[in-house]
């Protein structure tokens, strides 16, 4: 089975994630889509690592997970705080600032 397929899958996931960011309103879901994109990246890394036969890619994948985790911490903190002050997690409600 050709590893290229894993790449296609990665790309697909990435695209789905991006699309999700664009269409979903709930900040949490939007953020999950971003996470999906990151994981797509991970898949790509691992695949490439496999193809090139060196471990860098896999190591990077670990790093990415850590970073993603950190992002989750910060992100959720912010989203929760805004949810508490607005009683809504919809990103479309947050447009005091425009133009």
């Amino acid at each position, binding site marked *: *089975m*050709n*590893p290229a397929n894993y*790449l296609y899958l*990665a790309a697909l996931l*990435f695209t789905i*994630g*991006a699309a999700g*960011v664009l269409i979903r309103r709930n*900040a949490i879901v*939007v*953020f999950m889509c*971003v996470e999906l*994109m*990151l994981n*797509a*990246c991970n898949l*790509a*890394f691992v*695949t*490439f*690592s*496999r*193809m*090139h*036969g*060196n*471990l*860098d*890619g896999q*190591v*990077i994948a670990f*790093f*990415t997970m850590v*970073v993603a985790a*950190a*992002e989750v911490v*910060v*992100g959720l*903190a*912010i*989203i929760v*705080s*805004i949810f*508490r*002050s*607005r009683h809504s997690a919809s*990103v479309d409600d*947050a*447009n*005091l*600032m*425009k133009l």
Partner: protein
Amino acid sequence: MSASAIAPSVHSLWTTAAPATEKFPTPHIEYAQLSPTLIVFGVAALGVLVEAFLPRKSRYTAQVGLAVVGLAAAFAAIVALAEKGYGTTKAHIAAMGAVAVDGPALFLQGTILLVALVAVFTFAERRLDPKAHGRHVDSFAAQGSAVPGGDQERAAVRAGFTTTEVFPLLMFAVGGMLIFPAANDLLTLFVALEVFSLPLYILCALARRNRLMSQESAVKYFLLGAFSSAFLLFGIALLYGYAGTVSYSGIASVIDGTAKTTPALASSTQNDALLLIGLAMVTVGLLFKVGAVPFHMWTPDVYQGAPTPVTGFMAAATKVAAFGALLRLLYVVLPGMRWDWRPVMWGVAIVTMVIGAVIAVTQTDVKRLLAYSSIAHAGFILAGVIAIDKSGVSSVLFYLAAYSFVTLGAFAVVTLVRDAGGEATHLSRWAGLGRRSPLVAAVFAVFLLAFAGIPLTSGFAGKFAVFKAAAQGGAMPLVIVGVISSAIAAFFYIRVIVLMFFSEPKADGPSVAVPSPLTSTAIAVGVAVTVVLGLAPQYFLDLADKAGVFVR
């Protein structure tokens, strides 16, 4: 771990077998040469401990002291390294190829540290807001987690809470920014990016006034930031896929075809799409940080919503770090590909200059105005980036140094003009400021003129430097576009001056708060740098010139 141990069982599933991978070498770190960064991170960690263990009363003093000392020390370290010649002759790559210690890195790190130092002053300012329950308060929320206007917040204010965490956050951000322009492999680049972005996201959410806007800005910044870093990461993945390595030199050598070819490499380099798309996406990730059109849209909202000291710091330092990284990427990794990315960057530079200037024309809020102007300036700097030669690098370095201090100063002035609702950022409120307090208005006018690039200010010197580099790099059309858009830009800077000096002051106009020495120092430094770099830029140009060489 040992990959070879489990290798066969896994491999049996695979059609293509990869050779056994080599062992990890034991890492060795040149601590001395990384000392600036390490100091900053160390201080940041200490700051956390301070938050944990010191009584609330003494935290503020401790944190400010720590931050100032730490940054000063880090800067001293930078100077020492530069003295030792790490900027020029002994420039090399440290930490097993993760971080570069060379001219541009040191210059930019120095700039960032100074900017941060001044920013700390504005962070620490406690005289501007009216006293709450008899206590001086800074421009940060009493308790970030508390619901705006809720009982909890009122309680927090009564109790005299203050978010002194901002200082460690600031330090972490600074640490990330120090690595960002020095990062010598894509992974470090990505990690550094996140390390300085995440604290910024939080800082944005911590405004004392207009907390809703503050939180909104944080959300926007965070989501878009994460979105963009996803692109960056995917780009990295593709580049890794193309070159089989993430180290700059490695990728460069693969692109030049000087790397020793493995069969895997041979197959992957077959298809340039990986390289090109990867290159494009990484660039996009960086362009987002510098706020280039069309990746600029977060800028105005975030600049407006964030606490003004944070905005000032972000506007100045983030640009420096991001442009540093961009320069290194383009000059170290991709010089062999200039024919691919140069035209694209041309386009980006042009739209950035023009759109930034044009939209700013109709802005009505000082902070948004400055945001758009920063976009336009990003365009000007890109013009310098595109000139692929030494003068290009040094001109950009100089421009960044000049620009960052003007920006910092300008936002510091913005914090002074206040009315009942906090800072009066709506332009109409600034009418007649020149009569109320000529000095403040004059200072702001100086910054505006510097932005507009009027001769005898640092803005002019910087603009001339980058345009000169661009012209010598054969990008005369870019220069002309730049010139035209600076003419447009001049219009809205002038508009503010007109407002301040030529229109009658409003009866209920805002008052100009008398700042503590902290902010005064920040502003004074801004003015000083603006004037000195305007009148006698030669020394700094030489500095930037010496620092203009990347290590490969």
